[in-house]
């Protein structure tokens, strides 16, 4: 099975052209093709994971298959290859599972959309790219699929291309990611310049002994720009909240399994590069930590259900990046996995709500619990998991991160992380109390979604509950002996940390109940009282505005200046040369009187002059 692992991305990749060229007209068939393809991938992924266990494939002894893709003898060898280790195997499972559920869900959600077939083809390509990225055995291939993931996100975010906002969001996502890719590309160029290879395994052997850490640090910092963009870390996070312009299943896919996970996954893949550079690790940790806090504060003040979830994703990604930064790749990947399940669930739940109400503002919802029991209860489970209440999945993984930060001596980050946990619980339950309980506002009635939508919700809800157990101290640290860097290490259960984070989460939920759980004017008052802070939060710290200003004023301004320069200065000079010729010709033509006699006069004048000139030397003597 593991030999044929390369088929995992190939199934959905083949589904893409099949849907585009063949089954486009037959909508349900298109969906069937896409689902069948991803289901096949899922089965393969399960098989691969099983064989990884059975064959004893470990992080140190990965399985690698490669075929040459592009070669220039002696200079460049680029392989199309797959690398399977526990890390990849886990990711494959998560991606295929989430993608499968999202696709099933989409059959219901996208029902009746004119772009139904294209939607499934894009989803297939998206999954294929992400799976290719997971399997890649070298930087080049990972970049290759990295970009394709970016492309698919562009297509899917901008799926409702008739909406300006969607088209703009797609563009924004792609361009922001491009900036990050630029850094990533430079990073692995540096690596290639130093080591002459892109292959992860060869690099892993070469990097630890490398002396010139200055260059290495530069390369690592540049590579890190990639995840900053893909995983929406500050300051390249601006695309993610706008990405909700896409259909909601896409948001689920992007936020859970594919797009944003790619960045964290890259960090894990390239962990050997970072691990040898404490300075860069610190940078990674603080970028992650800052992003976690920064976006959690923004989430507190948002009203749009998908926007809240988007900022929550950013915040959780910040956690994962922070985990990487403090040196615990295991914790980061663990959280990535559990987060994938409950975040997918949250988005799909939100999609179910939006599907029913055609409304995204939580303050126009209310009392939805009564109308949509399945959606609401699964949503609450996911929220509890996100808030980190034991024994749900989120608790274990978040706890692992906090414990890692604490144990590795990053007390500041630990405190920050705990604060974020509080904020997370608060904003999630603000959402829940406002949207699902209380009175119906604006007279909107929900109705439960069809089975194709609720079944994935239920499956994900189960996973959100149980997925954490693979990594609990009570299950002999299954996850951390499986996916790790260096030595398999597990954090000893730190009951103080566990207790504190549970308390903090409960405090967050409690505060949310106090403020939003019953009719109250306290939130209003607070907003008025701290108007400046509130405005800052609502406007997301004006980061978008600053970027827009930079783009409009600086980039476009400079471009206009260049354009003017090109049209007037450069062209002016060259056209000036042309004009000079033409004008001088125009003036000189007046010498042409057109009168024959004048011409003859000139001719004979010239004859006389030439004759005199030629005869001048001999005018004195006799000509022989």
């Amino acid at each position, binding site marked *: 099975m593991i030999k044929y692992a390369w088929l995992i991305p190939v199934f959905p990749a083949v589904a893409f052209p099949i849907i585009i060229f063949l089954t486009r007209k037959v909508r349900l068939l298109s969906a069937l093709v896409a689902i069948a393809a991803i289901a096949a991938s899922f089965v393969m992924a399960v098989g691969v994971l099983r064989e990884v266990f059975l064959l004893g494939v470990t992080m140190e002894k990965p399985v690698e298959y490669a075929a040459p893709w592009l070669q220039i003898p002696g200079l460049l060898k680029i392989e199309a290859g797959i690398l399977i280790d526990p890390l990849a195997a886990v990711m494959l499972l998560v991606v295929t599972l989430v993608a499968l559920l999202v696709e099933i869900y989409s059959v219901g959600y996208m029902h009746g959309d004119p772009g139904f077939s294209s939607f499934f083809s894009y989803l297939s390509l998206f999954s294929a790219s992400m799976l290719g990225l997971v399997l890649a055995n070298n930087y080049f291939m990972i970049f290759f699929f990295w970009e394709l993931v970016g492309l698919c996100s562009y297509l899917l975010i901008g799926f409702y291309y008739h909406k300006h906002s969607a088209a703009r969001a797609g563009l924004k996502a792609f361009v922001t990611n491009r900036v990050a890719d630029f850094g990533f590309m430079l990073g692995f160029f540096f690596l290639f310049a130093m080591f002459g290879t892109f292959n992860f395994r060869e690099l892993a052997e070469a990097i630890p002994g490398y002396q010139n850490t200055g260059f290495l640090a530069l390369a690592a910092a540049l590579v890190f720009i990639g995840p900053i963009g893909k995983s929406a870390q500050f300051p390249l996070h601006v695309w993610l909240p706008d990405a909700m312009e896409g259909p909601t299943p896409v948001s689920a896919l992007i936020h859970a399994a594919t797009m944003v996970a790619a960045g964290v996954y890259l960090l894990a893949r390239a962990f050997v590069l970072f691990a040898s550079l404490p300075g860069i690790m610190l940078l990674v940790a603080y970028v992650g930590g800052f992003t976690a806090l920064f976006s959690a504060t923004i989430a507190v003040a948002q009203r749009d259900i998908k926007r809240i979830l988007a900022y929550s994703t950013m915040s959780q990604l910040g956690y994962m990046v922070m985990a990487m930064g403090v040196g615990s790749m295991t914790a980061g990947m663990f959280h990535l996995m559990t987060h994938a399940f409950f975040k997918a669930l949250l988005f799909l739940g939100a999609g179910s709500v939006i599907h029913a109400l055609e409304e995204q503002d939580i303050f126009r919802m209310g009392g939805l619990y009564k109308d949509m029991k399945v959606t609401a209860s699964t949503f609450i489970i996911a929220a509890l998991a996100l808030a980190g209440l034991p024994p749900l999945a989120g608790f274990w993984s978040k706890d692992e991160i906090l414990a890692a930060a604490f144990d590795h001596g990053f007390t500041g980050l630990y405190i920050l992380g705990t604060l974020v946990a509080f904020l997370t619980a608060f904003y999630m339950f603000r959402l829940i109390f406002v949207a699902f309980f209380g009175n119906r506002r604006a007279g909107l009635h929900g109705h439960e979604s069809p089975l194709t939508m609720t079944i994935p919700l239920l499956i994900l809800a189960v996973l959100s509950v149980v997925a954490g157990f693979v990594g609990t101290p009570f299950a002999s640290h299954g996850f951390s002996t499986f996916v790790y860097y260096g030595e398999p290490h597990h954090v000893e259960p730190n009951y103080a940390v566990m207790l504190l984070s549970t308390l903090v989460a409960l405090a967050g939920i409690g505060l949310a109940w106090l403020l939003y759980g019953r009719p109250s004017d306290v939130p209003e008052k607070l907003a008025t009282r701290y108007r400046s802070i509130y405005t800052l939060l609502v406007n997301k710290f004006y980061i978008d505005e600053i970027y827009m200003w930079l783009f409009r004023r600086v980039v476009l301004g400079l471009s206009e200046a260049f354009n003017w320069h090109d049209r007037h200065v450069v062209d002016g000079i060259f056209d000036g040369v042309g004009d000079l010729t033409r004008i001088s010709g125009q003036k000189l033509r007046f010498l042409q*009187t*057109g009168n024959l*006699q004048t011409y003859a006069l000139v001719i004979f004048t010239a004859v006389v002059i030439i004759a005199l000139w030629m005869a001048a030397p001999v005018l004195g003597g006799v000509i022989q």
Partner: protein
Amino acid sequence: MITLNHYLALGGLLFCIGLFGALAKRNAVAVLMGIELMLNAVNINLVAFNHFLEPARVTGQVFAIFVIVVAAAEVAVGLALVLNIYRRRLDSNVDDLDWLRW
């Protein structure tokens, strides 16, 4: 004693008078007359060279005859042109003609 140089000087003078006529007259017919003068001057030179330098042969005279032939043709065509132009422009003044202009 009349030498070759006398003839050449005469030819030269006649040529220059003809040239002056060709350059300075307005009437196209007068310009043609000037050209005839110039051709005659050339003929004088040719015959004189023949006479003084190569008396045994008649090459100069033959050339002169060719010149006369050409001159005759030229006059015929030239005058036809003048007539043609006159018919179109009712004018035979050359300096009003600037058809060669840009």
